């Protein structure tokens, strides 16, 4: 038995030694190295710009944390990154999934340090190959600054260009306080003036494509967070998310209170359906369209069942988005119209319970005065205020029902549809 044990253990020992001895390292895939000397700070990068736009020709990388991303749509194909030394805006060749708090490496060979209307940017970055995420959730704390230091221009640039900042105790100017961040319907960028208690002001510029463009500005005083951009001599703040405006006080300057609810559809974006309007054809194939024909000074919505040679039988509905009127006191509906030719009158309906299908929705007709003269084109006829006080709930939708027959049909033009609670 001892002999057996000896030999058995000898075999085992040899075997185990054999294994521990021949350690098998995994193959290594060839990968580029990044020498220490090829890493520069964002501050050094900014200094590459002296008087001319400069394209980087070396294998250089910068590291930084993303401080503004495209999630809310306020910036698009752009990122702001910042390190301990400075910050810069990146202009990308395509949109990319990098988010606030991502610490990234940016390989900047081929990119251009460019002065764009006095804003230093790093241009022509291909995010698919040049931006490499290192870590997530490394969010930077914004630096608290004052408006006067922010708007100070040194040579041509604010020293805060590209940086993430916070300004405390600010409010929007009275002229803007009741507006939205941008024109969400027309999808146009807008400037809003932010003032501090000393009367210094800075422009907050927001994109009409941002998810919050149609949201109301905060009326009261608070702190705001954003990245600093610049347009020629104007220093601007670009916010990341409206929820980073933290209201702390009632406002200091006295303004007229804002209407509790306001909605406008003015067709200036040449779209019938923007803002959530829906068309449904119950019969025929006649649709609303945006038009600016005639003497009316702007775009309006138009429908006609005349196809150039004859009238087409139809029933077409145009349904508004859902309005939440539950917090209003006296909501009122306004619109303007102009009608020509004979036929069934355009009808306005309202519901609080839209099923998604006009034929299965229970509608109440809304008595809205429309252009009474269908003998020709006039100036647009204002309806005056139509009370919606019976509809102080959520999910309120108004709808236009247009009916034409094969023998006649009106041409209806509508504009400046508003719901206002004062």
């Amino acid at each position: 038995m001892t002999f057996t044990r000896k030999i058995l253990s000898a075999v085992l020992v040899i075997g185990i030694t054999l294994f521990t001895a021949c350690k098998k390292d995994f193959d290594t895939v060839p990968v580029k190295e990044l020498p220490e000397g090829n890493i520069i700070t964002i501050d050094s990068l900014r200094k590459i710009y002296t008087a001319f736009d400069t394209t980087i020709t070396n294998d250089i990388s910068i590291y930084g944390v993303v401080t503004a991303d495209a999630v809310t749509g306020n910036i698009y194909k752009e990122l702001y990154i910042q390190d301990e030394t400075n910050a810069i805006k990146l202009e990308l060749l395509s949109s990319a999934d990098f988010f606030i708090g991502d610490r990234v490496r940016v390989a900047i060979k081929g990119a251009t340090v460019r002065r764009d209307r006095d804003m230093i940017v790093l241009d022509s970055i291909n995010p698919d190959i040049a931006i490499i995420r290192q870590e997530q959730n490394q969010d930077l704390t914004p630096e608290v600054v004052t408006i006067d230091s922010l708007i100070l221009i040194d040579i041509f640039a604010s020293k805060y260009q590209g940086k993430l900042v916070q300004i405390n105790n600010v409010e929007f100017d009275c002229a803007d306080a009741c507006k939205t961040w941008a024109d969400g319907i027309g999808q146009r960028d807008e400037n809003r003036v932010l003032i501090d208690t000393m009367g210094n002001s800075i422009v907050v510029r927001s994109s009409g494509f941002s998810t919050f463009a149609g949201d109301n500005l905060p009326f009261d005083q608070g702190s705001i967070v954003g990245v600093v951009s610049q347009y020629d001599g104007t220093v601007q703040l670009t916010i990341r998310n409206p929820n980073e405006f933290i209201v702390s006080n009632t406002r200091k300057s006295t303004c007229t209170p804002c209407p509790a609810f306001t909605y406008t559809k003015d067709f200036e974006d040449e779209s019938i359906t923007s803002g959530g309007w829906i068309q449904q054809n119950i019969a025929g194939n006649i649709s609303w369209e945006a038009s600016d024909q005639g003497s009316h000074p702007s775009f309006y919505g138009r429908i006609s069942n005349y196809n150039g040679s004859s009238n087409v039988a139809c029933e077409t509905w145009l349904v508004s988005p859902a309005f939440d009127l539950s917090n209003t006191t006296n909501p009122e509906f306004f619109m303007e119209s102009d009608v020509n030719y004979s036929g069934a009158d355009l009808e306005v309906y309202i519901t609080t319970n839209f099923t998604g299908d006009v034929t299965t929705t229970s509608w109440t007709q809304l008595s809205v005065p429309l252009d009474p003269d269908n003998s020709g084109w006039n100036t647009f006829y204002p309806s005056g205020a139509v009370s919606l006080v019976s509809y102080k709930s959520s999910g309120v939708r108004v709808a236009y029902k247009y009916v034409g027959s094969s023998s006649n049909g009106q041409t209806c033009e509508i504009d400046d549809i508003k719901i206002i609670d004062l």
Partner: protein
Amino acid sequence: MRIIKILSATVVFTTLSASAQTTPSSISNEDSTENATTIPAFTTSLDLLEGDAQAQDVSGLLQSSRDVFSNIAGFNFSAARYRVRGYDSENFSVSMNGVSLNEPEGGRAIWAFWGGLNDITRTQESKAGISSSPYSFGGIGGFSNIDSRATAVRKGTRISYASANRSYRNRVMVTHSTGMMENGFAIAVSASKRWAGEGYIDGTFYDGGSYLLSIEKKINDKHTIGLVGYGAPTARGKRSISTQEAYDLTGNNYYNSYWGYQNGKKRNSRIRTNHKPRIMLNHYFKVNEKTNINTSTYYSFGKEGNTRLNWYSAADPRPDYYRNLPSYYNNPGDEFLFEQQTNLWESNDPLATQLDFDQMYFANTKNLFTLSNADGVAGNSVTGNRAKYIIEEARKDVTHYGVNMNASHKHSEQIMINGGLDVSIYKSNNYKLIDDLLGADFWVDVDQFAERDFADETIAQSDINNPNRIVKEGDRFGYDYDININTYKGFGQIEGTSKKIDWFAALSLTSTSFWRTGNYQNGLFPDNSLGDSEKQSFFNYGIKGGAIYKLSGRHLIRLNGAHLTRAPFSRTAFVSPRTRDQVVPDLESEKLMSGDISYLVRYPKLKARATLFHTTLKDKTWSRSFYNDELNTFVNYMMTGVDQVFTGLEFGAEANVTSTIIVTGAFATGKFLYDSRPTATIIQDNSTELLAEDKTVYFKNFRIGGIPQTAASIGVQYRSPKYWFVGTNFNYFADIYLDANPDRRTEEAISKYVSSDPQVSEIVDQTKLDNDYTLNLFAGKSWKLKDKYFIRLNVNVNNVLDNTDFQTGGFEQLRYDQNEIGKFPPMIGYMLGRTYFAMVSLSF
């Protein structure tokens, strides 16, 4: 009197050599094999090519081996997907009456084709590793030969019933053997039925039958003939393998995405059916006292079918498709959708977590479509509900026949000579058919992916000779091709024995040719899809030898070595057999070298073996296909020049501590590695364009994944002289790696990174899974009634501690995103929790 003698002999047999009949292991093994089979080893996202053939092979091959290590390993390690020496199952030869049962396309022995015939397959001769074999040259892993001669089946009747909660819940089995009767006939019959409405895994069902008839007729002292026919018609609902996300969300590591409700009843979309009967005619010719010649002719036919969903111009209905999982929305800005999907999944709402057959039926009945030029007839318009969703069945219908001859000659008391010839003619017809239109009126036989990419309508045709074909339930569509494989083998072996040394040497020569016959002319590949492909021919040889040096009768040293070449398998040789006859570039034979050295101890109360082994496999061809929804097609990934190395040690011991207590121990560890930098070629099904070629895969020393590379077991059993026993085994598994995606180990995969970027290790490093353990229990008792009837009861419980977190393996998806490796996370399989198998049998 004679009967009594036989019976008492049987009793002695049962009690003494408990391992032959009443070992809990021998009854549990087939069942635990099936445990292992419920987790596919490495399937593609749609695993279209393979079905789950790989999952059906014999991991418990050496179940009835007398070898102490193989015994313990076979019974305790298979549930963790352990593979002996890390070898794939093509290295293990399984035969019946000398006729190979390894299927020619992939070399694997697929247990399902004779599952349920345990009473017959129990009688087998097995050897582990390189060894002499009278039946064939065999594989380097070992061989098993099932003896289904009627006289080999124990005389008498055996009836058993088993209850279990694994893939099936009930099993009944009846076997009767007459033994050699006075008229020279011996007849054995066996039949079984295994079934479960729902197995351990949700949505799986099992319906398996099996039958065997074996007749033997002794003509005279020299000639005996035998006839064997068997089959095992089986249908089962399959289980999926998913990402950890799906398991976490559902709180169920056995989550199965394959089923859904239809009219309130569970329906599995993936059903595997197989029935491949085999008829064998054997001739046993005793030439003289020294020479025997056994000749077998066989004919095998039948089908394998695997169903799956397919869809046209519709959203991917699979609940665990990555775009249907919450993580797809886990981005800033999508918080609402992320939360909504997460809530649906976490509440286990079947509308989110399972297939929705009712919705598919609804969609199929609302899709009125007019197909112009239907069936290629100009002006023939057919209007009806064109199917958006169907269940299709991928079929492999096989005809296989051949002749096998084995001769043995006892040259002297010391020298034994064996030889054999084998001819195998194999053909499989591979095609798809419509299994269920799910309420629609028809399906149109065009390749929707090609249709999307090319304006020319002919290109999208599956068969340009039958364009725009309207297909209905039972009709073939999509692809239709044959794989033909002809093999001619011969081997010779010489064995010698002397007082101190036993030795053997063997040589084999094999000629293999295979080719594809296309039955459709594919619109994308009109020039190389129809008719016979070029024949791929290979000539291979093998040599092996071994010797046992007897230090004494109790202590032996054994040394074996083998070198062989092996033709590439047709399963990996064709780059895209569904569409064309192109083969992998530079197709060549695999080369194997293997050697082992063992020390064996044989005392009546102590048996032990310790072995060191080293095997290299060179020039293997590797191919997988997966669906890429950005390319809208199947992508075929092939590697040539794949070398593997298997080095390790095995140790097994069994000791009778007292007359009633037996202690067993087994330990196996190894390094099973890739040993080269293979060359990859990537092509897509719907394009002649190569996605990549001559791509170097930096795969050296990457671990062969999905199997534990280290396993250990320690067991103790008590055997009462009063015919009952009880035992337990503690098993430990370590060094389990995920099967690595080769493409992630290429220069291209990390080209945009520098060494310090975290993505480099995320993409390149191979994931090692946690070590884990299981505890098994077994017990049994036998009774003798009226000196004639024997009743045996066996129970075994696997994973007694109900460890449901044991990740036994998995694989990295072939599809990956360089920017975000977590977008396509690995697929992970778990060992089943506590399961049992209990059987009562009556024999007389």
